[in-house]
């Protein structure tokens, strides 16, 4: 599985505006922390703008430039500039003040509630804390917000992203020095549709007891 292509697919999705809220927040945080990712996003924006420039035009029939000018007087187009440009803390407030839920000693989580079928949460690991060897049911995206962690695949620092799927088994350990805070997205398990669907879903349901 090629993670580079998956990362780019995510950034491209952000540029095209087709991500759901959780992934959109995740990617905006990625672009906020990672300048290389932000530059790639800018290349994607330009590719899409190039598509726009070369599109077969369809002139609008009912609107003209005067309408556009006049309608600005009726609506509030003022631009609010907040002092906080961090997409995550802009939404949930300061990370120091969150009410974390302890999962086990040294490992805490904070769920970010968005209307999305993907689950998005923050994970906080104390220095040196490790997660037992595991694989993933759905696909999982991890973005390091603070500190660092390492696993069999390398070291991940602030602004680095890791994508995990079913094939990946890993054993992450938070940095001894600062621990680690990550933003994580887990995609929902695939739900099967159609005639065979209920049988397959029942199978996944039973299977989940043997994990």
């Amino acid at each position, binding site marked *: 599985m090629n993670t580079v292509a998956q990362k780019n697919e995510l950034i491209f999705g952000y540029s095209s*505006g087709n991500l759901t809220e959780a992934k959109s927040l995740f990617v905006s945080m990625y672009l906020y922390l990672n300048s290389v990712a932000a530059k790639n996003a800018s290349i994607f924006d330009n590719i899409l703008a190039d598509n726009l420039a070369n599109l077969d035009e369809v002139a609008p029939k009912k*609107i003209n430039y005067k309408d556009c000018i006049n309608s600005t007087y009726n609506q509030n187009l003022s631009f609010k500039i*907040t002092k906080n440009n961090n997409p995550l803390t802009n939404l949930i407030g300061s990370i120091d003040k969150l009410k974390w839920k302890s999962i086990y000693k040294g490992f805490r989580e904070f769920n970010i509630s968005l*209307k999305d079928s993907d689950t998005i949460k923050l994970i906080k690991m104390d220095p040196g804390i490790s997660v037992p060897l595991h694989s993933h049911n759905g696909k999982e995206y991890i973005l390091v917000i603070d500190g660092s962690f390492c696993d069999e695949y390398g070291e991940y620092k602030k602004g680095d992203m890791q994508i995990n799927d079913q094939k990946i088994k890993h054993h992450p350990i938070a940095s001894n020095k600062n621990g680690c805070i990550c933003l994580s997205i887990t995609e929902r398990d695939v739900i099967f549709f159609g005639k065979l669907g209920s049988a397959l879903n029942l199978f996944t349901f039973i299977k989940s007891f043997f994990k």
Partner: protein
Amino acid sequence: MVVLKFKINKIIMENERLIGLAIKISKNRDERAFSELFDFLAPKINAYYLKNNLGFEQSEELTQEVLSTIWAKADLFDPERSKFITWAYTIARNKKIDLYRKTKNKTAEDEDIRHFLYQNNEINDYEIELSINKIKKELDENQQKLLKMSFFEQKSHKKIAEELEIPLGTVKSRIRSTLNKMQKFLL
């Protein structure tokens, strides 16, 4: 290389013209400049929304919103940060996102954050045009079409599979391999 340079120069010249109009609009509130910009942009943006499967009425409504935003916020366009057409594209895209999220909470991603990311853009036009041209050269027509359908027209993989009459798995793997091919011209 000469052709490439010519192409890039043409794009840069077109951009200069649009920047000129944007400045007249933001500095002098020049309605004639805006009318020229409208004639250039509105048919493209309208076509973009139609391609994104919106109806005639809604496409025109959104096109008007985009052009209104450009009139009202032209001073936020920064030629140092992007080409004008790219700025216009991001406004059109953001309106599309807002449309789909209208009923949901909008706090997750504020416009000012998108603007902040834009302001922090550190890449220069020439660098970008060079990347894009190399990408275009590297990808064959089908691959470019696939990217356009998936990311510009926002068609689902399923819809693409139907339109191109290829299996769904093939659409997914082709998009992946296209993105892989692009990688060497990204950062």
